[in-house]
């Protein structure tokens, strides 16, 4: 081949290859348009057996675990806050991740949050979250944080205060555990279910977490619990007002006029509380604070 024709073919290739690739991309787009895209939540895991995936990883299970964890995070991220979303594949993804890398603490800790959160926030499966965290504790007995997570799950989502206290107690025996774990165990054993105890737990989460999302969530919960505590106090004062005046208070101003409170109580967002027609104190409609939802019947443990 002469140098002239070699140069010519090089120019043709330089111009032609991008054009051909553009044509391929356009064609693929047409082909894709003929095949309906699967709706969110319809996709399945091709392999759902963690043991099988581990076998076929040929010794490269740590990287596969990273990939599965990333998939779990993306799966959760795609669905969280989206109305009608289902989290059916979340547990298999977390199961595979932790089977492939039993020491990936982050998968147990965040996975438990993803699983336990109700409504639009997660899979509403605290039972599975407990299974996951217990597996983490079995694989990583030196990690006290997992015991604290287990205690929290039992406390907050299952309302199982003896189990919660026990989990904190076990964690407190770890030489690396901070002193508050033992204090928490005693507190829950003594006053499980009280707002003060709940605030104590969320305060510890707020103070100890390194993750900004968890920290933000803890702050929201602390605000909600503070508002819940305020509402309970205001309801007691409203009862006193009712006994004294023979009618429900219409506002906090009336409580103040009656000398029951010194100022205008405000929620953590700075909005004054209001009263409904039944004389029950409520959050101001403008407030972004949300009172934590309590499950009417605690979920049953996973078997």
């Amino acid at each position: 081949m002469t140098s002239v024709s070699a140069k010519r073919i090089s120019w043709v290739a330089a111009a032609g290859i991008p054009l051909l690739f553009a044509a391929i991309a356009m064609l693929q787009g047409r082909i894709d348009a003929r095949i309906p895209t699967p709706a969110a939540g319809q996709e399945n895991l091709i392999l759902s057996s963690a043991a099988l995936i581990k076998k076929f990883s040929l010794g490269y299970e740590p990287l596969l675990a990273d990939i599965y964890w990333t998939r779990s995070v993306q799966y959760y991220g795609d669905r969280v806050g989206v109305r009608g979303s289902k989290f059916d594949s979340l547990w298999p993804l977390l199961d595979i991740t932790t089977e492939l890398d039993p020491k990936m603490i982050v998968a147990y800790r965040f996975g438990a949050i993803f699983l336990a959160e109700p409504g639009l926030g997660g899979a509403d499966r605290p039972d599975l979250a407990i299974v996951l965290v217990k597996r983490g504790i079995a694989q990583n007995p030196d990690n006290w944080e997992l015991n604290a997570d287990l205690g929290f799950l039992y406390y907050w989502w299952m309302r199982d205060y003896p189990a919660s206290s026990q989990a904190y107690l076990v964690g407190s025996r770890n030489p690396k555990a901070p002193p508050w774990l033992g204090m928490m165990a005693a507190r829950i054993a003594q006053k499980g279910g009280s707002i003060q105890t709940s605030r104590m737990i969320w305060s510890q989460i707020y103070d100890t977490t390194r993750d900004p999302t968890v920290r933000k969530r803890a702050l929201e919960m602390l605000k909600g619990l503070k508002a819940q505590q305020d509402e309970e106090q205001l309801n007691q004062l409203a009862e006193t007002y009712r006994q004294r005046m023979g009618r429900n208070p219409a506002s906090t101003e009336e409580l103040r006029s009656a000398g029951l409170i010194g100022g205008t109580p405000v929620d953590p967002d700075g909005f004054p509380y209001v009263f409904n027609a039944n004389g029950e104190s409520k959050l101001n409609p403008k407030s972004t604070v949300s009172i934590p939802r309590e499950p009417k019947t605690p979920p049953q443990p996973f078997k």
Partner: protein
Amino acid sequence: MSATTGPVAINTFREAVRDRVLYNLIFFALLMMGAAILVGEISIGIERLVIIDLGLTAISIFGLVMSVFLGVGLVSKEIEKRTLYTLLAKPIERWQFLLGKYAGLLITLAVNTAAMTLGLAAALFYVGRPFVRSDASILIAIYFILLEFALITALALFFSCFTSPMLSTLFTIGVFVAGVFAADIRNFGALAKNPALKGIATLVYYLVPNFQNFNAIAAAGHGDHIPASLVGQNTMYAVLYVAVLVLASSAIFSRRNLK
């Protein structure tokens, strides 16, 4: 290294460099750079873990591919190009030639792995984490990967002494996969009720190289301590196994009719 095997080893290394074998480092560098930049975007809480796992897996896979494909060509290429006849006309024994070729490929793999280790260190540095004492386990994991390469290269060399490059590749990969499943072979034997089957499974378990011994990627990722005794045992295991394979290769190659 003796006066005869040394030059063969050095020439094998030079040949590999001339064949642009080390170009794989460019892919590795791109992979690590991409991972270091993207890792924070796609996952949470495991940036460092991903870099270590990805880096060590890439080092292992790149090296494995090189060990198999270069290993099977160590002898066959020399025969194909007829350079073997010129070489063997010189005062060099066939086993010395084999040993030199093997050592040359090991040097190539070691240099390649060292360069990739530097790439991994740079990526870890980029994700903003100072090196700590527990990072020594990463170096130990890389050392184990090198031991694995030594074994696979020896396997490839062994098969290439009596069969074609295509079959040598298949056999080497087959033994590697069997070696990864060594523990399952043992467990299968333990579950078998037939004593003969149990005996065969136990024999196969000890016969195939146990590549799970050298898997320390997870430990390195989590900064776990790897005991010195394990390092010693794995080194001994690899040395003994390589000695068996190189001896067997030498015996076969010495008797091979090269006409």
